[in-house]
């Protein structure tokens, strides 16, 4: 016996028994044929995709991450988990980005000076805990959000809710401002900070002023929406069952139940769709989207969102000279990137604003890919070949884009160092106040507006009055831009304001670039062909109006 415990024959020093190559190949071929032979059969099912033993009245949505926090006062994640349960006062109408319709409110009026807004609430509305969703309750819910120490109250821009919000009667709630709020009715349709949760449930389960009911509501949401939570299995699935008392009624063939199932791997989400075990999949990899687009059993609901992915320039360091930033902008080939990397699943941005932004037209302010022009600009700015820059991105987001930029910048003689950080460390750097030489020269990030208004979007990101902690990570300060942003505050976007936003887009994107916009994201929900009523709203990023969905016979 040898050291490895293998018994060798006496006649020969060779191993007596081996798995012969012939046997291995035969077995492998048989396995391969058996496997491959089955694939066309399953695909041959064509447009008729069975749902097996599943209840057809239940909608199964596969998502890549669980929404862990269902308290609307503090939820900063995706809102898809909140939308079935809660309502806002108004809601964006279909795919419109600036036009709202009533939700909790049946009508909205405002004073001529836009200092006072009055919402008439729908009658007979109840929260899922049975308490009335009247003016007093709505005021209490909003007040809770505004006063919550870690809440999204700043979105309301109401300094003193006790005084500024008045429950005139059971169904009338009034908001009084000292500054005109010309589109407050649109602001309150936002998915971040504007959902109304039962104040009774929050108060009853509060663990103190730091909590204000959050620990309870995050897994036991109590709203007035069409569905209420039936089961919540962390990291696994959430089942919503319809709320019989919902004031919107159940005339339409709505789903009885909605099950959101967390499946982190895109390939597995695709398998579930193809096997008939899921109805809708959110957030797929580009290749899966391209493949399923060509599959007659599915419909890809493809909508341009208002989310931009971009590179932020740190403007108070090596990139202070706008010509260097312009050169970097000229060094990114958007067409090649969108065609070959994201396979056409995103759009070419036109400026630092999402292209649906009020006041913009079809003009593109993007600096074109032109390496010669870039070299000339660098020479002009005395930015020597061999210079080094650093770009930071967080794990899982922007690595490909940063590598591409690194490649193109190397053609200009610039060495771009890539620095991947954890999300926490990235945010620390991005929003931090470290001196320019102690932070990256460029950052990769994404952003979308809460409401479709240029001031709301641009102030925190580009105004010279703001800091990195507000969102102006590049410490960008251009006097003309700051002035234009200030002039857009609380303005209805007419022709005069539209001229200003176009000028602003020109400054921020090409004249004195604050960012290099990389792509404007598209939302691609993939659903079975029998699912009806899919409407994507670009502002409501990655959420579905599940109430309006149904399964065709």
């Amino acid at each position: 016996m040898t050291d490895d415990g293998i018994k060798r024959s006496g006649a020969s020093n060779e191993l007596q028994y081996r798995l012969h190559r012939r046997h291995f190949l035969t077995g492998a071929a048989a396995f391969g044929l058996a496997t491959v032979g089955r694939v066309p059969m399953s695909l041959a099912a064509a447009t008729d995709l069975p749902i097996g033993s599943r209840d057809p009245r239940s909608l199964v949505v596969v998502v890549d991450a669980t929404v862990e926090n269902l308290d609307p006062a503090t939820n900063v994640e995706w809102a898809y988990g909140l939308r079935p349960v809660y309502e806002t006062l108004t809601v964006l109408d279909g795919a419109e980005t600036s036009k709202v319709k009533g939700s909790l409110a049946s009508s909205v009026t405002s004073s001529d000076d836009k200092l006072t807004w009055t919402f008439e609430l729908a009658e007979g509305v109840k929260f899922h805990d049975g308490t009335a969703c009247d003016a007093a309750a709505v005021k209490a819910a909003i007040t809770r959000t505004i006063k919550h120490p870690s809440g999204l109250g700043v979105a309301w821009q109401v300094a003193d809710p006790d005084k500024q919000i008045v429950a005139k009667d059971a169904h009338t709630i009034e908001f009084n401002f000292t500054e005109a709020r010309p589109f407050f009715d649109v602001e309150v349709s936002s998915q971040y900070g504007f959902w109304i949760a039962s104040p009774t449930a929050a108060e009853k389960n509060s663990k103190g002023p730091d909590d204000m009911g959050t620990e309870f509501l995050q897994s036991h949401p109590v709203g007035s929406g069409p569905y209420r939570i039936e089961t919540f299995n962390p990291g696994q699935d959430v089942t919503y069952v319809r709320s019989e008392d919902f004031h919107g009624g159940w005339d339409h063939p709505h789903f009885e139940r909605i099950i959101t199932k967390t499946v982190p791997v895109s390939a597995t989400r695709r398998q579930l769709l193809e096997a008939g075990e899921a109805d809708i999949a959110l957030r797929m990899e580009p290749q899966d989207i391209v493949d399923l687009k060509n599959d007659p059993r599915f419909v890809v609901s493809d909508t341009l969102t208002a989310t931009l992915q971009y590179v932020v320039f740190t403007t108070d360091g090596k990139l202070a000279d706008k010509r260097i930033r312009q050169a970097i902008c000229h060094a990114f080939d958007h067409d090649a990137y969108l065609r070959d990397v994201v396979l056409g699943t995103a759009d070419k941005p036109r400026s630092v604003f999402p292209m649906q932004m009020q006041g913009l037209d079809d003009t593109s302010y993007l600096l074109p890919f032109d390496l010669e022009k870039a070299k000339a600009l660098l020479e002009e700015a005395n930015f020597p070949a061999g210079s080094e820059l650093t770009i930071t991105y967080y794990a899982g987001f922007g690595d490909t884009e940063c590598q591409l930029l690194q490649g193109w910048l190397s053609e200009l003689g610039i060495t771009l160092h890539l620095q991947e950080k954890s999300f926490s460390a990235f945010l620390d750097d991005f929003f931090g106040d470290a001196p320019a030489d102690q932070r990256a020269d460029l950052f990769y990030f994404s952003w979308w507006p809460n409401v479709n208004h240029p001031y709301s979007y641009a102030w925190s990101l580009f105004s010279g009055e703001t800091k990195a902690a507000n969102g102006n990570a590049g410490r960008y300060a251009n006097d003309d831009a700051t002035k234009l942003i200030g002039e857009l505050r609380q303005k209805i976007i007419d022709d005069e304001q539209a001229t200003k936003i176009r000028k602003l887009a020109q400054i921020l994107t090409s004249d004195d670039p604050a960012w290099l916009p990389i792509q404007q994201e598209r939302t691609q929900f993939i659903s079975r062909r029998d699912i009806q009523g899919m409407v994507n709203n670009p502002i409501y990023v990655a959420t579905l109006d599940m109430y309006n969905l149904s399964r065709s016979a």
Partner: protein
Amino acid sequence: MLRFAIRRFVSTAFLLTGVLVMTFALARILPGDPARLVAGARAGPEAVAAVRAQLGLDLPLSRQFIHYVAGIFEGDFGKSIITRRPISIDILTFFPATVELVILASLLSLAGGVTLGVLAAVKSGGKADASVRAVSVFGLSVPDFWTGLICQLLFFSVLGILPFGGRLSTGVAMPPQVTGFVTVDSLLAGRPDLFADALHHMILPVFVLAIPSTAIIIRVVRTTMLEVLSADYIRTARAKGIAPLKVYLRHALANSLLPIVTVFGLNMGLMISGAVLVELIFNLPGLGRYTADAIAGSDYNAIMAITLVVSAAYILINLIVDLSYAFLDPRVELK
């Protein structure tokens, strides 16, 4: 034996204290502001400061450590940044799925590894030996995420005979949680249908997780058995006309148990930390997936708690293995 056990428990306590200090220090040294993570990218500086105070991150490090240790003695590991729930609740929610997976995979690997290892040793040099060795090499060399994806593709997508993963079928409610093991809780709830459904869902992940461990056990059993089978007392037993099966099991295998138990214990500990990919692929809401999310999200409190729990589990398993030596071999004295 009692003194041995007490000594081991005391040394375990020191070990865990070391782990505690190290994880706490590492979590504080690593870059990143958990308060910003909790408050979110859209939160203003005031909200971030409020969260920092709420989490106690504005306190001096020494006070943070004292609060943390005091909390642990009360079963309070703090709150998760990602799930925002108390971490002790998260661990109770996610850990049972991992333990259930690991126990079943360990048992499968033990049964499979011992059977195939004995077979290979007994048929040493034969076709069976070569096949078992090929299986063993395959199990050791192929990564489990690949095996998992292939199994999923074959048994779920192509053949449609096994579910893709999860703990129960879509839309089927979980049984009331008693142990957290869905198989056990189904039986306790008097729901054999749920038990069957749960087992059905466990087949693929258990099989995939068991493969590397089975391969190791096969090699250990085969090598040990070959050595034992050439011992004088085995020849004597054979010469006395004892039935071959009895010789293999009663005389040879019984005397090969110590290394097998050692490897089994080590494998079980490794499986707890190695279940991440299997849980991810098969969509099991276990501690592995929770850990992966915690690491990706810099959820320091959760990472510290998981490190402690996994370390404790690993140490406990090894303690049990050590204690079992005395039962398995009367010649072993625990000192």
